[in-house]
């Protein structure tokens, strides 16, 4: 898997060259635990899906290609929004605006086509651009004015949500939009909905930028210690600003995708993805690279939540269960990452103690050879 290669924390946690020589006795066991830790969510998700699939009458509906296709397609939008949130979050900056930005982009793209007769492609370029603009504003508030990101971006979220509701007056925009737009988002490539492929493309790009470019390293540096980052020459303000703009563009893309999926715009849909996206982010931090928000964990998190919701609804639970699942998943995700963090520390301690015992005095090699 490509994500296991060449990332600092991944090499640090896996039994890399450093640990190999000295960690003999506990290695097999600790490798097993590491696998459980890194892929626990995936394993749990597989178990949950199996459970729903075997669950009497609703099982066959749950596993029907129609249902799976629906989940993969719908949730791709949540996934893209979560990835938009992930970019500034890597630098430790909470950004709650992307869901509302996606809603804004959705409304703008649909309105351009519906009321101004634009063709789809230019409309969507504008949608991405609108996202970038929101990112510029958020960046100004957060990086330049240094306002509390959590509160300010929540303000942006509420304001944008309100503005789009106001503009649409609660109506759905769908007139005069070419059917090809909605059909694009509903069609498959290789039997998998197109939005899912788009999510994967966005995920690969975000992963690459975050883990393989200096910009991504700068974000991680700021997330680790902003003051130290500044003193190693990282232009922190500019980097954060760039991050919010990138986040805005990705949010704008999510809005375009939403338009292509629904063939129109409903101002209430985009903003409603905030909590599923948040839940996915936190859930994602418990897997793949435990303890850090990460791209692939987030993607898995999105589908974990979606599978849980779908399974419960098909089993006859009222559809309001969705909110409950989002909330509970948030709480559990935070609890799991907290506990597994402590657990990891204890395990490391045990591990190292064993090492310390087998190598009684490694402390004295202070000779300096320059």
């Amino acid at each position: 898997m490509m994500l296991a290669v060449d990332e600092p924390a991944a090499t640090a946690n896996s039994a890399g060259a450093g640990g190999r020589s000295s960690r003999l006795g506990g290695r097999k066991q600790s490798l097993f635990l590491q696998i459980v830790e890194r892929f626990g969510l995936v394993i749990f998700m597989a178990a949950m899906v199996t459970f729903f699939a075997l669950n009497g009458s609703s099982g066959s509906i749950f596993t029907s290609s129609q249902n799976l296709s629906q989940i993969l397609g719908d949730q791709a939008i949540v996934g893209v929004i979560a990835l938009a949130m992930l970019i500034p979050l890597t630098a430790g900056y909470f950004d709650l605006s992307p869901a509302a930005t996606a809603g804004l982009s959705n409304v703008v793209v649909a309105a351009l086509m519906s009321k101004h007769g634009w063709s789809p492609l230019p409309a969507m370029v504008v949608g991405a651009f609108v996202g970038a603009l929101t990112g510029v504003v958020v960046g100004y508030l957060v990086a330049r004015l240094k306002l509390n990101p959590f509160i300010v971006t929540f303000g942006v979220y509420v304001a944008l949500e309100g503005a789009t509701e106001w503009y649409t007056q609660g109506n759905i925009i769908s007139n005069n939009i070419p059917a090809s737009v909605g059909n694009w988002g509903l069609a498959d490539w290789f039997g998998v909905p197109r939005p899912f492929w788009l999510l994967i493309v966005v995920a690969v790009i975000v992963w690459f930028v975050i883990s393989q470019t200096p910009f991504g390293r700068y974000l991680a540096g700021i997330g680790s210690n902003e003051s130290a980052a500044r003193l190693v020459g990282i232009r922190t303000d500019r980097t954060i600003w760039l991050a919010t703009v990138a986040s805005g563009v990705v949010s704008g893309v999510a809005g375009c995708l939403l338009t292509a999926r629904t063939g129109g715009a409903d101002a209430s849909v985009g903003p409603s993805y905030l909590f599923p996206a948040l839940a996915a982010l936190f859930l994602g931090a418990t897997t793949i690279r435990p303890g850090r928000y990460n791209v692939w964990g987030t993607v898995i998190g999105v589908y974990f939540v979606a599978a849980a919701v779908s399974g419960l609804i098909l089993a006859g639970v009222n559809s309001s269960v969705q909110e409950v699942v989002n909330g509970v998943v948030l709480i559990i995700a935070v609890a799991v990452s907290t506990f597994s963090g402590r657990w990891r520390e204890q395990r490391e301690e045990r591990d190292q103690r064993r090492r310390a015992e087998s190598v009684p005095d490694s402390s004295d090699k202070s000779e300096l050879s320059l």
Partner: protein
Amino acid sequence: MAAVDDTPAGTPVIGGRGDALGVRNLSKTFPGTRALSSVSLEVRRGEIHGLVGGNGSGKSTLIKVLTGIHAGDPGGEVELAGQSMSADRVTPEIARASGVRVVHQDLGVFLDLSVAENLSLGSQYETQFGARIRWGTVRKRAASLIKQFDIDAAPGDPVRSLRQSSRTLVAIARACQDVQGSDDGVLILDEPTASLPAHEVSLLLGKLRGYASWGRAILYVSHRLDEVLELTDRATVLRDGRVAGTFITQSLNESKLVELIVGPRLAEVLPTPPSVMSGEPRLTVRRLSVGPVRDLSMTVARGEIVGIAGLLGSGRSSILRGIFGVDRPSAGTVMLDGEDARFKSVTDAMRAGVAYVPENRTEDAAFFDEPVYVNIGAASTSSYYKRFRIRYRIMRHRGAELIEQFGIKASGPDALMSTLSGGNQQKVVLARWVSRQPRLLLLDEPSQGVDVGARAEIWRIVKEVTATGTSVVVVSSDFEELARVVDRAVVLRRGIVAAELTGTDLTADALTRLAYFDYEDDDDACR
């Protein structure tokens, strides 16, 4: 000199029934290291017992085991208040009940509350019906404690208004109030003078002697060897988690202590300065004003080490931050090799070949949740970006080389920064900058909070760097060290250059006298 491991060279010490604290065969194993190995030590009633050792020697761990924060390894034994127990059984509750009290460098006093309230928060407020606080009683009790502990304050004074040493006394009184009148237990003072102005140190030491005369056992933990020599009755030296020896303090002197702390191999701690450099100036500062500093002029030659000596608040750090583009100078010129060097940003300064090791490693330099090799490469990230990817393998390889070269003690390049000791973290930060081969290296308190051994290595590295032509400006409040290490020193007093010393004039005494000049009268008054 003969090895001193576990064999006290001074007068042998006999443990007895009357000891306030006894530790026998105590070990503590941590991830990666054994912090304590078979430590034994006794503190008698009424004794001030020094505990010294480099960073990572196990002092803090020992304190944490004694206070029950860490469980010792099974097999060790701790004797408190006449009761012996297994070291893995000591809990914070037991330690407290046995009279163990700790006052840390960070006192934990509430600056905005009154002395009386601070003292009450250490025990309990006297209340009457309906949990209403009986302020009268609270104040009366505070007054009596103030008298007992001889604190220069009134019960109603906010602690913020007290001088530093009095705040320390308030913290001590708060910790000890409920064990007054008993000579069980031990008062542990962890670097109590670290943030104290020099003239208040003797004041505090005098009070401590008084407390000991009541029969209270005091374990005095400090980096400052002169204080340990002046104050304590006996001293135990820890090195690499082992007891290097317990000695009657009178049998010790500073150089012997250093030798014990460092171990026989590194006895020659600091390199001797070479003859004064000459050559074209690398750095020329003219009439620079930045922060509290006014009209600073100085030059630094190629390969020269220039020290800036000054007390806290003298503006010493501002100079370095001003040159590095962090703080903006309000006036003056800076030239680097004849070119204008008034940098607008850190990036500009770095591009011009300037490097800066900040004073506060925790806040301004360390990326704790990143591996060591990422920390080392942090100032060179873009140089590892080749063919559209960060080449982590090359970064890691380079990190491993520098770990070797700088003698950094880490389990490998992948070890998280947070798992390293302070001295090794400092070497990581130094490696980060030295590996960029800077023209000018700015060091802000590079050996602060670093043990004697790591200090020697840091200075040796700096020396090596100057051999390649790099110039160094170092700020330090350790004048002893400064005098031995630098070629030339500038003394700052209240933002103004008070003197410049070279050659035989450059002594710790001279630096101290010049830097403290204003306070001398004050100091005498206190005695």
